[in-house]
């Protein structure tokens, strides 16, 4: 199921899956719910940026000979 949500199925597996959810209501529902959850995480979880001091210190490390 999660492989379907994440696009990790092979072509054959995808076909089988698509066929399955046309008639299996509980799987179809689970699929929708899982997709929603995944979308929610992507949209809602805030991503933090590295502080400038960190970026600078790392840039420095590759600027000077080691």
């Amino acid at each position, binding site marked *: 199921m999660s492989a379907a949500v994440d696009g990790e199925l092979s072509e054959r597996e995808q076909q089988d899956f698509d066929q399955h959810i046309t008639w299996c209501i509980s799987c179809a529902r689970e699929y929708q719910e899982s997709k929603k959850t995944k979308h929610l995480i992507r949209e809602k979880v*805030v*991503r933090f940026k590295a502080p400038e001091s960190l970026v600078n210190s790392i840039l420095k490390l590759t600027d000077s000979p080691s």
Partner: protein
Amino acid sequence: MTSHNKEEQQISPAEAQKQRDFQEEAIQHINALYNYALHLTMNPDDAHDLVQETYLKAYKFFDSFEKGTNCKAWLFKILKNNYINKFRKNAREPGKVDYDQIKEFYHSIKDAQSDSEDLNAGYMKSLMHDEVYQALHGLPEEFREVIELCDIEGFTYEEIANMVESPIGTVRSRLFRGRKLLREKLNDFARKHGYGTE
């Protein structure tokens, strides 16, 4: 006559190339790495140190990195190993979740950021960002980790399996169960605030 004189600060062409390649390939992932380090450590100072050490190590072993493969995945693996070596040894009790601590941490770091992402209406408008964050961090670590790596960082199953050192089947089932658990938690939050769940 002046070979290997440290004061001269001259580097070989190979070294210069290595620096360029590293800057081109590796530095761009710094935000993702920092974000991941924060998830792991829940502490900005620790995350800072962790990322720094990761890059130091990565630069040192950059020659062993296969160009053309996923550099981000490679860096993540190094970071994870550093984390385990450094922090897991003095591990907190597993399974203990302090929601107040998570909330506090989330808000403190969010305030410190001048341009974190905008509030997005998205699917479940009633849920606030911090609740989703809390719900995610309330999950057992093995579930939370795969969700982060898959949904937030966009790694493939194969890459994730390599990073967490588990078979792909395990990754699949953790994602399935993790998302399900997360849904239940989010529904709880929504219910507590009097919103209908969908």
